[in-house]
């Protein structure tokens, strides 16, 4: 289970989803998978921010997942054996877990699957892919500034190349700005991006009231 705290998912929701992603890409400490990569932290932070539109889909999906586990095995999903969990994941994928709207449980599986891949393989800045374990699994060296001609040979082995992350690129940009593109001549006018004004306090209160706040 994740070493970080959750900011959207409730305790049992996080346990259930962590168990689910661990069946999608199974692993252990010696051969990390989605759980070891902290995919649950990725999903939790995404739901608390850019993926807020899918909060309810997750909340409802986990509820139905646990309800199905309780009905079939008398325990919540996270408490089941790997074999029993796999049986339920198979049922999710093939639309056999009841109660889901839309196109059924396969949609929920597809959503969690897509976000598991993102959490496994996005930059660690997003909370998943802890220590680059997702990238190591697939043989990707990460956010490299560039590759040499020697790197780019068919059959070359880059698995020993130290993995770089966005954080490393940030340090490189700070230490060696000369390696990056800048424009000094023909300097453009300053950015004219206009920032919308903050809503007035009055508006904020009105909005809060209309939402029952």
């Amino acid at each position, binding site marked *: 289970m994740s070493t970080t705290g959750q900011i959207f998912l409730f305790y049992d929701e996080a346990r259930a989803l962590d168990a689910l992603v661990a069946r999608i890409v199974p692993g252990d400490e010696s051969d990390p998978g989605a759980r070891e990569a902290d995919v649950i932290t990725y999903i939790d932070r995404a739901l608390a921010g850019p993926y807020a539109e899918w909060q309810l889909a997750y909340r409802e999906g986990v509820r139905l997942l646990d309800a199905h586990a309780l009905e079939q095995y008398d325990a919540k999903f996270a408490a089941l054996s790997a074999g029993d969990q796999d049986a339920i994941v198979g049922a999710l994928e093939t639309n056999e877990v009841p109660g889901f709207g839309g196109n059924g449980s396969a949609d929920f599986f597809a959503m969690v699957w897509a976000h598991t891949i*993102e959490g496994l393989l996005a930059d660690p800045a997003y909370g998943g892919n802890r220590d680059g374990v997702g990238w190591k699994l697939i043989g990707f060296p990460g956010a490299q500034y560039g590759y040499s001609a020697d790197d780019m040979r068919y059959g070359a082995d880059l698995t020993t190349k130290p993995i770089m992350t966005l954080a490393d690129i940030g340090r490189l940009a700070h230490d060696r700005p000369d390696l990056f593109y800048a424009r000094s001549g023909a300097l453009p006018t300053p*950015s004219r991006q206009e920032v919308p004004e903050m809503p007035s306090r009055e508006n904020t209160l009105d909005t809060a009231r209309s939402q029952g706040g």
Partner: protein
Amino acid sequence: MTTKHADVVIVGLGASGAILARELSEAGYRVLGIEKGPEYQPRDFWMKFDELRFSIRCGISPTMDNDPITWRANAKSEAAILPWAVGPGAGNPLFLPPSLGVGGGSIHYACWHWRQMAEDFRMRSVVVEHFGEDALPEGSRIVDWPVSYDELEPFYAQVEREIGVSGQAGNINGEIVPGGNPFEAPRSGPFPFPPIRPSASNQPFVDACNALGYHPFPVPTSIISEDWGERKACVYCGFCRDYGCHVGAKSSTQDTTIPAALATGNLEILANCRVQRVNVDGDGRARSVSYVDAKGEGHEATGDLIILAAYALENVRLLLVSDINANGAVGKWYTIHNYHWFSGIMPQDTMIYAGPAAGGWGIDDFNTTFHEYSDGSFLMGTPIMFFAGDTQPIEGVKNMPPGVPMWGSEFKEYLRTNYRRRFGMYSQIATLPVESNFLDLDPAVKDPWGQPALRITHDWGDHDKAAGRWINDIKQQIAKEMGAVQVWEAPLDPPYHVTTHEHGGHVMGHDPSDSVVSGFAQSHEVPNLFVIGGGTFPTLSAYNPTATIQALAFRTADYIKREAQAGGALAGTISRATATV
């Protein structure tokens, strides 16, 4: 509400608008460029190494929230907001319109920078010559362009020289040059930069093509292979398609013509401002455009000349909402590319994440020679491009071969062994301009400012599938010769109907009754309005379109400058009244 005035108002500062902006500001005209997206600075892309942000979440692409587009397969079905572009895990900028901002699609593009073949400018003649008039499908409008390759050649050369294009010439003034594309149309000179470094696994592709008797060559790229001023040579990071460049190697207009235009002092840029309408006076001349700024406040900008240089889809939308469609031709003859994606696995590591995708070489043996292979079921060919770079992990992993389980230990084994040995090939069969594929305004869906969304009516037809089967069989043959251990194909009629290569809708032609603009992109209906870009293409070649879009933009600029002089067709239309030089 404010009113601004300029000699020339340009809507959209992308691949083509930014060229007009520079050409006309350098000629002494006061230019106002109104751009829907932001004005990025070079440092904004120093930390661009983020697949999730820029590719999966489409960080610099238009969103369906702000710029909704709807699609339906045919006129009898209900349109919905692009179904392949919404929902969890749906993101892929390849199936959206190109990036927004100053530089437009030339920020995110993958930088294949082809000239068209001479035959591509006379598609009707080619089809009729080989298959007869009867081969032209019913309800199609396959025509010759109002501009020829020879007329456009100097402008292609200008684009290559002035933005920076790398490549190996194959034909200079009729002389075949070893190492280049022997099929290309004659060029007046070599490329200004030598080819970029090939993809890591390019050699097996080249060897296979040579063994099969084909003619592989480094494809032209608008990525510089050597330092040029402050712009640095490509460093082959592989975060290229969908990303800005951290070293300035990508020849976007944002880093080429825009700084030069700003240096004249004659260009003013209004970023984050969306044009909603072209206002036409009672005398039939365009007076102004109406736009909203980032705060949502409405303004007007008047100009002697108004140039719509937004994306093809947005140009069409603006013409329709502005009621500039007297002959009913706006929105017709919509054409796009089908990439017929082909993926495979090699025995050894391919580093598919490294270097630009355009570092893969190509063959043109099956392009304008299509008639040697076709029984009439397809009427065009395509190059085949090796695609073995610039594929980041999330996109790569999600492109799964059939039969692999989506979870569990077998899926993990797939992750461990497949991505690192991946390669691809793609081609660009264009849809034919047919009546059943068209653009209009959606009757129900509006953007957040209350403006109607564009509606696409498009489906893949028998032609697209027949051509796809033919070209994919050739890819199969090449992959086998390469020693690929596994290959798989995308469906010949894929679920998406936007491929960043949308064309037509305001096609050019000599006849004002059945085309929207002249060969110089001047509106037939509103004489001081120009509508430029891929929307003017009356037929679509199998090449990435930006080089042709930009060459046409230079040609339009040349026309405006020439005809604005005393006695010219635009004399009296445009003045330099407000210019600073």
